[in-house]
């Protein structure tokens, strides 16, 4: 993984770094385990809101793994990561704004 990371820094052409098969398979196994975990977590009776929040938390961990490794953002150059940051800020801004409008309507 470190090897691939170093490559990512050496080349601005992102086509030139190799992420190893092993890294991908490890991430895939983690994603499968998290899928199982989210199914099991749904059987716990925490109250609907807590259950949904927990499921969304696990989904976000999974999404983070897919985005950073499968979609190579972890190995990409800084500009692209800055773009991702702008996207997250946008989402993190819009969803609570909308939900607060709904809650106090």
């Amino acid at each position, binding site marked *: 993984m470190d090897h691939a990371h170093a490559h990512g820094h050496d080349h*601005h*052409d*992102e*086509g*030139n770094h*190799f*992420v*190893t*098969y092993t890294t*991908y*398979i490890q*991430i*895939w196994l983690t*994603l*499968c385990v998290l*899928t*199982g975990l*989210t*199914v099991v977590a*749904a059987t716990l009776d925490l109250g*609907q809101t807590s*259950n*949904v929040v927990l*499921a*969304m938390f*696990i*989904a976000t961990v*999974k*999404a983070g793994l*897919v*985005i950073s*490794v*499968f*979609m*190579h953002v972890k190995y*990409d*150059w800084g*500009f*692209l990561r800055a*773009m*991702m940051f702008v*996207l997250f800020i946008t*989402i993190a801004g*819009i*969803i609570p704004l*909308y*939900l607060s409008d*709904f809650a106090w309507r």
Partner: protein
Amino acid sequence: MSTTAIHAAEHAGEHAGHEEHVDPVGTKIGMWLFLYTEVMLFMGVFIWYAQSVATYPLQFHHAAGELNTLIGAFNTLVLLTSSLTVAMSITATQRGHKKFALGLLLFSILCGLTFLVVKYFEWSAKFEHGYYPGGEHLMAMPVGIQTFFGFYFAATGLHALHVILGLIALLVATVMVAKDINKPGQVGFLENAGLYWHLVDLVWIYLFPLLYLVT
């Protein structure tokens, strides 16, 4: 400038782009900007869900129980596996392992088709039982149940449409790898098709618990 002249100029530009200039950075930024618009589209869908589940918590709880968790989990694993093989196919192409890359891509396409076939049977079962928008059985149910199934069909339908588009992109990428248009060190189209496929996977990662696990 006449339309034909613009067309000719565009054509010349395209031609020059293929022959002399490759811009992997620009290509990738362009793809990500497109993916952001997709994220915004699906964010609207998720906000719709948040409002609906807050309005009809109990009815969503009952309606989600009508869906088969096992089938949903199976389809989740199918998509995760296809994401793995798509990601691996990029490494394989970069290493020059063309046959392995092609095998991985064909397997990914097979996974995508499996997902759609499972979805087809799932939808068919719901239709047979009258659980479809405007269906006899569903119209007799409380409005919260109708909302849930309205969301179910709209969200999974929109997602399935993206699966179909992603499959077409993967098919094109497979042909490009097979014909050596995607060479090692220059895998622009394959990488972008892969990014699109991962986005399809990401949307499902959120849809699966929201639809199948709010019971």
